[in-house]
C-alpha cells in the first residue's frame, strides 16, 4: 500500500492552490488599480469625455441706422470623430448615401485633419438641411462616430447688397492654418476672408467656449458635464446707410461698375457698391465646388471690388486736377481763353475734341462745364506732366486712400520720373496731351476720384474713407470709435477753389453743362462727367466707353461727395450722373424729412 496517499495531503494542496490564486489576483489588481490606477482612470475618462467646441457667435454688423447687415443664425453642422469610427467604410459610405456629399470629399476632410488627435471631431458638412439631420439621426446606430452640432452660421440678410463691403466668412484652409496670424485657430473654424469680415476679424470673432460631454462607446452624447460659455464677438456699426446703399445697388443692378458716397467732412462711407456682386451667404454655408467655380471663373469678376480695386482711365474727370494746378500756379486765370475748333494739332498728331464743331473761345468755366478737350490740351501742355503729377499726388491720386477694406489698389498718375524708372525712356510731351483729358497712362480707382470730389468740396482737405463707425462690445460698450483721420490738407487760394467749384456747379446746373439732365430741384449738386475711351485688346472690336461722374453736394456747403463708374456704360452724363442724382436726392430728402420732423 505504498501508493496510498493520505487524503489530508490533497487538502493541503488545495489550500496551497487557493493561496497562490489569491496572491496572483491581488498582485494583478494591485498593479492595475493602485500602480496603474491613475493612468487607467485617465484612459477611462478619455474614453467617455469629449471636449466639444461651442462656437462663439460672430459680432453683428449694423448699418448707420441699426439695420442688421450681417448676423448669425443656428445651423446644423455634421462632424465625424475618427476615434469613434468602428468600421471606416461603413461610416463613410453610409454618410455618402444619406446626405448629399461625395465619398472622396469626406475622405479628403478626414485626411486633412489627420494631424489632430483622433478624438478631435472633423467637420464634414456645414449647414445641412433638416431633412439630412433627420436621416442622419435615424441612422446614428449604423454611423458610429458621426455627430451633429448646432452652431452659429453667418447670415447676410441683404444678400448681394454691400457684399464687397461686408465680405464673407469661410472655412479656414490648410495654408492659413499653418500661418502665424491664425495660430489659435483649428480646422473647421470660419474666418473672415474678404471685406470687413476680414479686416475686423479680430474684433468680430468671439472666444469659443467648450463643452465637456460624456459619450458612449459609439460616440453618442449621453450627458453634458460642464460648459464654458462662448463670448460673442464685438459688433460693428457702419457709416453705411442701407437705404442709400439699396438705391445705389438698384441703380447699378444690371450694370458693371461701382459707386461710392462719402461724407466730405469725415470720410465716412455712406454707400459703396460694386457690381456685379456675389452672395456672401453661399460662402458661409461652406461653398460648394460648383459655386466656387462659378464665382472665380466668371468673366465679369464679381469678387472684385471695383471701387477700390478697379483701375480705369478717369477721362474728363481728371480735368479738375489740371484746372486746380493751372489756376494755382497762375497759368490760367478766369479769363484765359483758348480757341477750340474741334481739334488740337500737336507734333505730328491731331487730338480731337469730343465736340466735332469745336467750342470756339473757351475760358476755364466753360472748359469745365462743357468739358472742352482742346482747352485742357492747351492747359496740360503748358503745365507739363510733372506739375500735373504733383497736383494729383497732393490730392492723393495714385496713392492708397486707406479705406478700412482689404485689398485696396492704388491708381497711377504718370510723371517723367516714373516713365524713366519703369520704361527707361524720357517723357514725351505728346503723352501729356492724352493725360490732360484723363487718357493714356492715367489709371485711377473710383474711390480715388471720390476723394478728388471731396478735395474740391472741402477746399483741399480730405479724410481717410472709413466704413466702420464704431466697434461695440456685446454688452453695448463702445470699444473703439473711429474719429476722422485727415488724409490731405492742401492750402489752395480761395479763388482757385471757387473757380473750380463754380465750374463743377455749372456742369450740373447750367443748361450747357454736361450733366444738366441730372440737376436736382431743391438742392444744387456739383459734379464732373467723364467718358473714358477704352483701348480694346482685340483689334476692330470697340468696347464701350467708361462712364464717370464725380459729384459733391450741396454745391454751396458740401457735405457729401460721390463717385460713380459704369464700365463700358457710354457717356458719363447720361449713365453715371443720374445715379449720383438718385443718391444725392435721397440723402437730402431724408435729411429734410428729419429736419421737418424736428420742427413741426
Amino acid at each position: 500500500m505504498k501508493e496510498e496517499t493520505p487524503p489530508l495531503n490533497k487538502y493541503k494542496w488545495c489550500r496551497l492552490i487557493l493561496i497562490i490564486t489569491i496572491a496572483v489576483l491581488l498582485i494583478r489588481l494591485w498593479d492595475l488599480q493602485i500602480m496603474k490606477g491613475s493612468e487607467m482612470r485617465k484612459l477611462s475618462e478619455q474614453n467617455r469625455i469629449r471636449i466639444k467646441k461651442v462656437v462663439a457667435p460672430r459680432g453683428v454688423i449694423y448699418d448707420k441706422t441699426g439695420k442688421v447687415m450681417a448676423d448669425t443664425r443656428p445651423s446644423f453642422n455634421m462632424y465625424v470623430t475618427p476615434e469613434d469610427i468602428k468600421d471606416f467604410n461603413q461610416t463613410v459610405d453610409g454618410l455618402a448615401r444619406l446626405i448629399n456629399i461625395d465619398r472622396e470629399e469626406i475622405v479628403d476632410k478626414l485626411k486633412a485633419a489627420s494631424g489632430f488627435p483622433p478624438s478631435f471631431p472633423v467637420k464634414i458638412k456645414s449647414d445641412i438641411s433638416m431633412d439630412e439631420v433627420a436621416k442622419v439621426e435615424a441612422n446614428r446606430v449604423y454611423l458610429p462616430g458621426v455627430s451633429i452640432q448646432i452652431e452659429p452660421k453667418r447670415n447676410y440678410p441683404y444678400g448681394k447688397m454691400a457684399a464687397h463691403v461686408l465680405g464673407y466668412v469661410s472655412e479656414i484652409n490648410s495654408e492659413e492654418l499653418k500661418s502665424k496670424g491664425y495660430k489659435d485657430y483649428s480646422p473647421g473654424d470660419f474666418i473672415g476672408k474678404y471685406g470687413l469680415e476680414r479686416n475686423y476679424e479680430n474684433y468680430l470673432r468671439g472666444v469659443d467656449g467648450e463643452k465637456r460631454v460624456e459619450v458612449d462607446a459609439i460616440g453618442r452624447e449621453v450627458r453634458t458635464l460642464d460648459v464654458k460659455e462662448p463670448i460673442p464677438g464685438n459688433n460693428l456699426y457702419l457709416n453705411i446707410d442701407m437705404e442709400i446703399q439699396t438705391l445705389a445697388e438698384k441703380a447699378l443692378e444690371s450694370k458693371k461698375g461701382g459707386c461710392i458716397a462719402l461724407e466730405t467732412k469725415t470720410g465716412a462711407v455712406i454707400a459703396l457698391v460694386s457690381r456685379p456682386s456675389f452672395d456672401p451667404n453661399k460662402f458661409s454655408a461652406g461653398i460648394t465646388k460648383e459655386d466656387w467655380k462659378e464665382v472665380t471663373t466668371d468673366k465679369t469678376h464679381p469678387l472684385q471690388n471695383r471701387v477700390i480695386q478697379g483701375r480705369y482711365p478717369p477721362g474728363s474727370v481728371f480735368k479738375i486736377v489740371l484746372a486746380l494746378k493751372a489756376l494755382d500756379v497762375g497759368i490760367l486765370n478766369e479769363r484765359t481763353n483758348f480757341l477750340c475748333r474741334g481739334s488740337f494739332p500737336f507734333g505730328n498728331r491731331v487730338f480731337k475734341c469730343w465736340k466735332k464743331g469745336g467750342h470756339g473761345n473757351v475760358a476755364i468755366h466753360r472748359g469745365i462745364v462743357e468739358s472742352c478737350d482742346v482747352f485742357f490740351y492747351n492747359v496740360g501742355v503748358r503745365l507739363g506732366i510733372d506739375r500735373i503729377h504733383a497736383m494729383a499726388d497732393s490730392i492723393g491720386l495714385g496713392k492708397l486712400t486707406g479705406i478700412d477694406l482689404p485689398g485696396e489698389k492704388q491708381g497711377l498718375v504718370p510723371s517723367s520720373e516714373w516713365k524713366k524708372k519703369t520704361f527707361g525712356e524720357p517723357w514725351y510731351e505728346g503723352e501729356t496731351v492724352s493725360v490732360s483729358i484723363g487718357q493714356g497712362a492715367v489709371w485711377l480707382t473710383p474711390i480715388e476720384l471720390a476723394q478728388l470730389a471731396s478735395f474740391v468740396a472741402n477746399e483741399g482737405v480730405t479724410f481717410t474713407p472709413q466704413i466702420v463707425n464704431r466697434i461695440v462690445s456685446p454688452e453695448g460698450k463702445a470699444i473703439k470709435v473711429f474719429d476722422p483721420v485727415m488724409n490731405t490738407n492742401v492750402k489752395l487760394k480761395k479763388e482757385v477753389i471757387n473757380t473750380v467749384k463754380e465750374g463743377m456747379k455749372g456742369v450740373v446746373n447750367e443748361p450747357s453743362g454736361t450733366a444738366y439732365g441730372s440737376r436736382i430741384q431743391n438742392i444744387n449738386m456739383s459734379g464732373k462727367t467723364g467718358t473714358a475711351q477704352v483701348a480694346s485688346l482685340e483689334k476692330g472690336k470697340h468696347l464701350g466707353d467708361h462712364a464717370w461722374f464725380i459729384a459733391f453736394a450741396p454745391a454751396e456747403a458740401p457735405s457729401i461727395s460721390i463717385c460713380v463708374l459704369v464700365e463700358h456704360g457710354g457717356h458719363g452724363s447720361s449713365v453715371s450722373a443720374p445715379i449720383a442724382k438718385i443718391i444725392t436726392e435721397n440723402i437730402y430728402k431724408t435729411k429734410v424729412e428729419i429736419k421737418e420732423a424736428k420742427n413741426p
Partner: protein
Amino acid sequence: MMRIDKRRLYHLDWYLIINGLALFAIGILNLISATSSFYSGSYNYIMKQLIAFLIGIILIFVIIYYDYRVIASHSKWLYLSALLFIVLVLVIGMIAGGAKRWISILGINFQPSEFMKPILVLYLANKLYEKKRDNIPLGLKDISLPIFLTMLPAILIVKQPDLGTAVIIVLTCLAILWFVGLKKSTYTLLISIGALSPFILWEYLMKPYQKMRILSFINIDADPSGFGYHAKQAMIAVGSGKFLGKGYMAGTQHKLQFIPEHHTDFIFTVFGEEWGFVGSIVLFALFISFIYRCLKISQTAHDELGSIIAFGMASIIYLQFTINVLMAIHLAPVVGIPLPFISYGGSSLVTMLVSVGILLNISMRRYMF
C-alpha cells in the same frame, strides 16, 4: 426514502448559507448597476435573476430532503437526461449571439450545459467513490470511462459553441480524478495528453473567432477593434476603479457600453470599477472563504462519496471564479464563463444553488452512521 430528520436541519451549514447569500446579495446589487444606464434601468434582468433565485431555493429544499447517496445512485438518469438536453440544444436550440446554447421549454429559456456541471460531478463521484474508499489509485482502465463520460458532453458543448463551459467540465473531471488518486503511469499519460491538447484544440476543434481570442490575449493590440479592444476596455474598467472605486452606479466604462457582456461574463469589470481594490478584496475573500468551506465539507463528509461530490462542487466554483476574474483582468483569454452568484443568468444561478443544496445535503449528514 427517509424522512428528513429535525436533527439534520440543526446540522445545516449556516456558514455556507450566509456566505452564499452574501455573494448573491452583492451579485444582485452589482447587477442593478450593470443593467442600468445613467438615466434608466431595466428591472427585467433583476426580476429574472430573483425568480431564478427562488427556483434555486426551492430546489435546495427538494435536494436536502433526499439523502445525497440516493441522489447519486440515480445520477445515471440525471446524466442521461442532461445529455439529451445538450443534444436537443444542437437540434432545436435558440441562436443568440451566434451560438446555440439555450433551449426553450414552456417559455422558459435555459442552458442545459450549466446543469451538466453538478450532474457530472455526482455521476463521476458515484462511479469512483469505491476506488477512493479502498484507496486504489486509478489506472488507465479506471479513468477511461470517466473521461469518456466527460468528453462526450464536453465535445457537444464545444459544438454549440460554448468553450467556457466545456473547459470547466473537463477541468472538473481532471480535478476529481486527481482527488480520487491516480497511478504514476496515469499521471504521466494525462500530463502528456495535457501537453498535446493545446495543439489538438488549435488544429481541430477551435473556431477562427476562438483562435482570435487567444491571439489577442497574447498580443492585446493584435485586434484593437475586436476582442483585444474588449479585453483592453475591461482592464481599463477594473484599473480605473483605483483604491476605493468610482462608487456604486458610477462606473462609466460599462454604463457607456465600452464593455460587451458586462452583465454576464465581464461582470467583474463592473464591480472592480465601482468598488475598486478594497471592494475586490472583500469579494475575493467571500469567494475564497466559500470555496474553503466547500473543501471543509469535503473533508468532514460522512463518506468518500460525499467527499468527492463536495470536492467536485468546490472545483467548479473555484475554476469559474478564477478563470472569470483572470479573464477580466487580462490574465486569461476571453472565454464565456459566468462568475458564480454574481453574473446574470438564470441557469447559472440555479446550478450554483443546486450545488449549494448538494453541499448542504452532504454537510448535514456528516454525523450519519
